């Protein structure tokens, strides 16, 4: 309980720092970007009026506090391009991106655990070399290239889905079907990384004394692997998978562009090109929060699995 409280306050502190840095970085250039929009008609009076309208004349601390509370109330200021409230603009997009990253994450977990239990048996054989090469190859395939191939093979050639025509979240079944392809594209290299890491952890664990004892006592090798070794390899695996979330978000940003998914990543890229900083800073903080929150969740899950962890960093 104390541990949970400590982790959650660390999460809040991290997010406060992240949001402050983001806001400070962008507030410096936000005003000039807005002025640039006035173009040649920028008389001093109009600039002053615009600064007043955007609230740039008020103290930094006030603007920051207002913006931060916007994450709770949904009022994050107006987009410079769309003349619309940032909160409203992003609401559906947040869900799409979170759904996509969640699906990739599920794929990674579901594929990498059985795969690593399989490949750990090959250690030291010639299959091991083949697997290492294949694994290394999968890690080298950029998600947007896989995405490009998938959208062509399954979209254009086989008509399983229509790239660029995301059905919207209200049609849940179709949306999940559509997102499966980008999720696979994101997951492939991450599955390879996870299998590699899990294989190493399992191998180290297999060299422990308790494994030798269990096997010499007559336990079946497979059940030792599943019942004892896998459990002990679980905490590092959970921590690793949580770190994977950062990688998944990176994949989401790029792959949304490949499949034409209206999510945060695409919005981020468009807004950077448009210099629409209110939108950019909101998206950055949302994505950062998603990553930091999944890391905190992993810590909390791990301490349930192995309560000794709570004592370690005291």
């Amino acid at each position, binding site marked *: 309980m104390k541990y949970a409280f400590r982790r959650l306050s660390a999460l809040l502190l991290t997010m406060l720092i992240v949001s402050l840095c983001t806001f400070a970085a962008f507030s410096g250039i936000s005003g000039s970007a807005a002025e640039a929009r006035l173009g040649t008609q920028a008389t001093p009076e109009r600039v002053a009026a615009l600064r007043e309208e955007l609230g740039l004349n008020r103290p930094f601390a006030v603007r920051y506090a207002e913006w931060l509370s916007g994450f709770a109330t949904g009022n994050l200021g107006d987009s410079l391009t769309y003349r619309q409230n940032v909160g409203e603009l992003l609401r559906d997009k947040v869900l799409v991106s979170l759904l996509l990253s969640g699906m990739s994450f599920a794929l990674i977990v579901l594929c990498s655990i059985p795969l690593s239990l399989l490949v750990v048996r090959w250690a030291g054989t010639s299959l091991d070399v083949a697997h290492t090469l294949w694994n290394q190859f999968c890690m080298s395939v950029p998600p947007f290239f896989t995405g490009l191939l998938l959208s062509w093979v399954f979209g*254009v050639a086989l008509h399983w889905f229509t790239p660029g025509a995301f059905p919207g979240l209200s049609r849940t079944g179709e949306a999940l079907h559509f997102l499966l392809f980008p999720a696979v594209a994101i997951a492939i290299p991450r599955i390879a990384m996870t299998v590699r890491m899990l294989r190493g952890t399992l191998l180290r664990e297999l060299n422990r004394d308790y494994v030798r004892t269990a096997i010499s006592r007559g336990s079946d090798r497979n059940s030792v692997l599943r019942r004892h070794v896998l459990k002990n390899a679980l905490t590092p695996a959970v921590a690793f998978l949580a770190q994977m979330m950062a990688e998944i978000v990176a994949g989401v940003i790029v792959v949304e562009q490949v499949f034409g998914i209206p999510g945060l990543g695409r919005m981020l890229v468009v807004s*950077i090109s448009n210099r629409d900083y209110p939108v950019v800073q909101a998206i950055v903080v949302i994505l950062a929060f998603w990553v930091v929150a999944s890391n905190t969740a992993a810590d909390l899950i791990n301490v349930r699995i192995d309560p000794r962890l709570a004592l370690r960093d005291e």
Partner: protein
Amino acid sequence: MSALTRASPFGMNREMMKRNYYLCAGLALTGVLAAVTLVGFFWTPYDSAAMSADKFLPPCAAHIFGTDNFGRDIFSRVMEGAGTSFMIALSTIVIGASGGIVLGAVTGYFGGLADEILIRVGDALTAFPSILLALVVISLLGPGKPVNLVISLGLVFIPGFARVTRAAYAEAREINYVKSVRLMGASHARIMLVHILPNTAPVLLSALTIGFNNAVLAEASMSYLGIGVTPPDASLGYMLSEAQSVFGRAPWYALSTGGVMILFLFGVGLIGEGLRVREGEIL
């Protein structure tokens, strides 16, 4: 592997190479690709920007990767694009590694408050997707210029290297050989540079290969998104975004561009794998 053969951290003697197939294969693959890329800086079979009437030619003897929608020779474009990608990744790594190693060495060796702060900041930063950070920096600097791309990627790669170096230096500080040379009157700078740095080489080399691949991927992703390298320059990532729009007519464009990039990453990845095998690390 005896202690003697490991005496030179950068040297790879023949016996070690013979057994380390990953390292050999990786070096060979990367070597071939790097050589072709290097040639591309001075000579390409065709002018990579020259358009011709031979649009959408499939791979043939005259154009081994075929031609694109403007009739440009794809092989020449790939040679040039790989050069751009390679140079950007290399400059990124030079900025990231030199910044990170200096920062990590000083804080790890001396410890104290700066060290404490660096750990916290580093922990927070490594939780973020590197592309997100790079996108933030590039949107602050202004997108569309290769220099800004290199600066933003370079800055983003500093914390990772600082973290690895710091850990190695903090560990080395407590070891007797460092204490001995200190008693013999060696200066801090000398200890850090001459005594500890060579011992961190295995860790750093491995971090360099991973970092290089991440840099190639990050550059490719950003150029694909249209925020990195923009025309008239071409990089592999930008070419893939071009190739996507003509995939139906000329699938060989995307396949050859992507294939070269994958082989590049695969080669460097194998080198990294080989380096870790050499250290006897359980993978």
